[in-house]
Each structure stands twice: as structure tokens, then as C-alpha cells.
């Protein structure tokens, strides 16, 4: 039971991070014509990997973080949102979300069948 609990908790975290990222991408797309706007990104997976490599269950405390992307060059109006980049990020993020929900669904399916078998 504990193995399932810990893994679902991780999946919840990943879902939270991808949901936040979707919101951030939507904000970038909405601001594609706002002069001086700097696009935002969400850092989570790399922080999670570090925590997982460090061990001791610290990964459960990892929180997604919104950061300004200052590396992408800006247009003359000071805005650095590229529509293609955002739409691609949105697609990629959605696929990740679907993958996590599918895995989570599998966990619930497992739980359901084990409850049934117990009867």
C-alpha cells in the first residue's frame, strides 16, 4: 500500500506542476503583444530529479517555481514571446499531463481490482 501512496503523491505533484505550466503558457500567449513583457517558464522536473537523486524522500517537498526567461532575445518592443514556442510548449505539456493522468488512472484501476479480489 505504501508504495502506491508515495507514487500517487509524486504523480499529483507532477500534475500540479503541469497545470501550473499550462497556466503560465496561457499567460504568455495572452501577453504576446504586451510591450516589455518577459515570458515565464516553470521549473519543476529538474528540481525533482535533483531531490530524487539526493534520496531521503525530499522530493515530496519540491514545489514548482515560476521564473522569467531572460535568455530568449526580445523583439524591438521588449517582448520575447514567440507564438510557435508557446504553442509547442502547450502541446508538450498537455501530452505530459495525459501521460500522468493515464498512469494515475492505472493506479486507481489496480486499487479497484485488488479491492474486488478481496471480496
Amino acid at each position, binding site marked *: 500500500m505504501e508504495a502506491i501512496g508515495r507514487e500517487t503523491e509524486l504523480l499529483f505533484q507532477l500534475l500540479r506542476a503541469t*497545470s501550473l505550466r499550462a497556466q503560465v503558457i496561457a499567460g504568455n500567449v495572452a501577453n504576446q503583444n504586451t510591450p516589455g513583457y518577459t515570458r515565464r517558464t516553470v521549473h519543476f522536473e529538474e528540481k525533482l530529479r535533483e531531490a530524487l537523486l539526493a534520496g531521503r524522500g525530499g522530493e515530496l517537498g519540491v514545489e514548482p517555481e515560476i521564473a522569467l526567461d531572460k535568455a530568449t532575445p526580445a523583439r524591438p518592443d521588449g517582448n520575447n514571446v514567440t507564438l510557435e514556442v508557446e504553442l509547442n510548449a502547450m502541446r508538450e505539456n498537455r501530452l505530459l499531463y495525459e501521460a500522468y493522468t493515464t498512469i494515475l*488512472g492505472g493506479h486507481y484501476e489496480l486499487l479497484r481490482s485488488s479491492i474486488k479480489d478481496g471480496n
Partner: protein
Amino acid sequence: MSGIEKLFSGMRASSTGLAAERVRMDVIAENIANAQTTRTPEGGPYRRKIVRFEPLLLEAAGRPFETLGVRPSAVEADRLTPFGILHEPGHPDADARGFVRYPNVNTVMEMTDLITAMRAYEANLAVQQGFFQMAERALQLAR
């Protein structure tokens, strides 16, 4: 919680983008419609209008980079682009020397702006569609 509330605030962010681009399209339409208006209640020819966009930030809540979308903060008159001046002595709005001042609207420029606004509108719509699909997936878990 798996962050479904973030999906909803993302949907709302896309809506603000749609609304803002619509305001921009309305202003562009007004500019084009008034491209030949030589007399206005304020006096002088029509001045081209520009929409200013501002991000909706969550700074107050201690989350400085979190955006809730965009808002058209102001519609301002373009005071930098000069009026077009034509010599038309017979025009009712001609001055003593026969010159008529025409609005500072460049229809070609307005049309390109309109295309960007339309593309931006479509992009916001596409992102919003993505949220519906994600929410759909989340709901499937409960089935």
C-alpha cells in the same frame, strides 16, 4: 489536489487574451472606418487610436511572476504620427490656403495590425482548447 484550479485560471488567462485582442480589433476597425474623417467633435481630423496592453500580475499575493492574463489598460490617441496634408481648395474642411488635414491612419498598417490581432486571437483560442482537453482527462480519472 492535482492543480485543477490552475487549469481554470489558465482558461481565464486565455479568455483575457481573447478579450484584449477583440478590443484591439475593434479599435483597428474604428481607425479604418475613420481613415477619411476630416472633422471630429474635438476639432481637427480623426486621430488614430492605439490600445495599450498590460499583464495582469499576482504581485500582491507575493507571487511576482505569476500572470493571470492580459488587460487592455488604455486606448490612447496617436499624437506622434503626423496628419496627412492634401491640397484640396474645394473641400469644406480646407484651411485658408486650401490645405486639408487627413487622419494619421495608414490603412495598410492597420490591416497588418489586424492580421496580428487575429492570429493572436486564434492562438489564445488554441490554448484554451488545450485546457478543455486537459480538464477532460482529469475528469476521466473519476469515472
